[in-house]
């Protein structure tokens, strides 16, 4: 099924729509009307955190809609964060707090009132 479309999709160099979008984005960026990929990339952390102001957010989303590069990158960026958040590989020793309290009681820091 649509092998040609698939190939074109994977190779942006021969995808006219992507080139056109890039051209439009580049044109708008050159005219100072819209942020380019690099600028949009700087907004990514704030976008993900939901701290972009309304105007920047609109520019950001407009760019994302027409730029395959940035939307792919954002997808990778989000998956990176998601995978990081799911990390729970460190096993906390069961008696960690008890060990610490034992250490503190033996250090003479504690029990100064009792003596």
């Amino acid at each position: 099924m649509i092998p040609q479309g698939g190939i074109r999709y994977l190779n942006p160099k021969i995808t006219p729509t992507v080139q056109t979008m890039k051209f439009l984005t580049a044109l708008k960026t050159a005219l100072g009307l819209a942020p380019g990929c690099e600028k949009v990339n700087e907004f990514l952390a704030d976008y993900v955190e939901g701290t972009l102001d309304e105007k920047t957010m609109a520019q950001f989303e407009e760019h994302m809609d027409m730029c395959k590069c940035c939307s792919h990158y954002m997808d990778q960026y989000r998956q990176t964060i998601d995978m990081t958040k799911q990390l729970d590989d460190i096993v906390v020793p069961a008696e960690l707090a008890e060990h610490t309290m034992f250490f503190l009681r033996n250090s003479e820091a504690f029990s100064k009132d009792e003596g």
Partner: protein
Amino acid sequence: MKPTNKAKPERAGAPPDTGDMVTSTADGAEDAISLEALMAGDEKAFEQLVVQESPRLFRVIVRIVGDDDEAESILQETFLQAYQRMNTFRRESKLTTWLYAIGINLARASLRKSRRLSSLEDQEVERMQPQFNRGMFVETPAVWDPARVTEYSDRQQLVRRGIEELPEDYRTVVTLRDIEEYSTDEVAKMLDISSGAVRVRLHRARGALRKLLDPHMRRLPRQ
């Protein structure tokens, strides 16, 4: 009513500022410990603090030093110093933030002494960021296919190794923000750097981690 910083909304589900009580921020622990009791050197209150904060602080220290035994002894030293220096706590931050700052500093000192090096240098982290030409992407980033790494343990290992490769400053910011989910402002106070610096470091760390994951996550061409 305290003035709120609109640039930094609290994440959903975060507990409200409880003033004189010490709560575990990211979890929203139910038991608040009286700050007055802690400041007065109350042992019971301090024990509550140890019980409440040990697991998370231990995980943060393990990520920095990369060794469980060493992390446990740093954790103990952290609480000892906190207990002894309680009178220097100025209430300009949360007590837990102050506590973590002590722990992180001790962990960093230990890491320097051990000379355990992460495999990436700062300049490499820079090179791992996306490349732009005249403000536009040089090459189209690949599409990622989550189905490529479906085994839970494989995913864990992939991400853990990636994080271990990051230079310590980057690793620590990712740990505090993305794994332990402290706010940008809290992380800034823990590390004694600006919120802006936390944002930049976090963004670069994620960018580098993304680059390390990329070869494992790219959608494979259809056969």
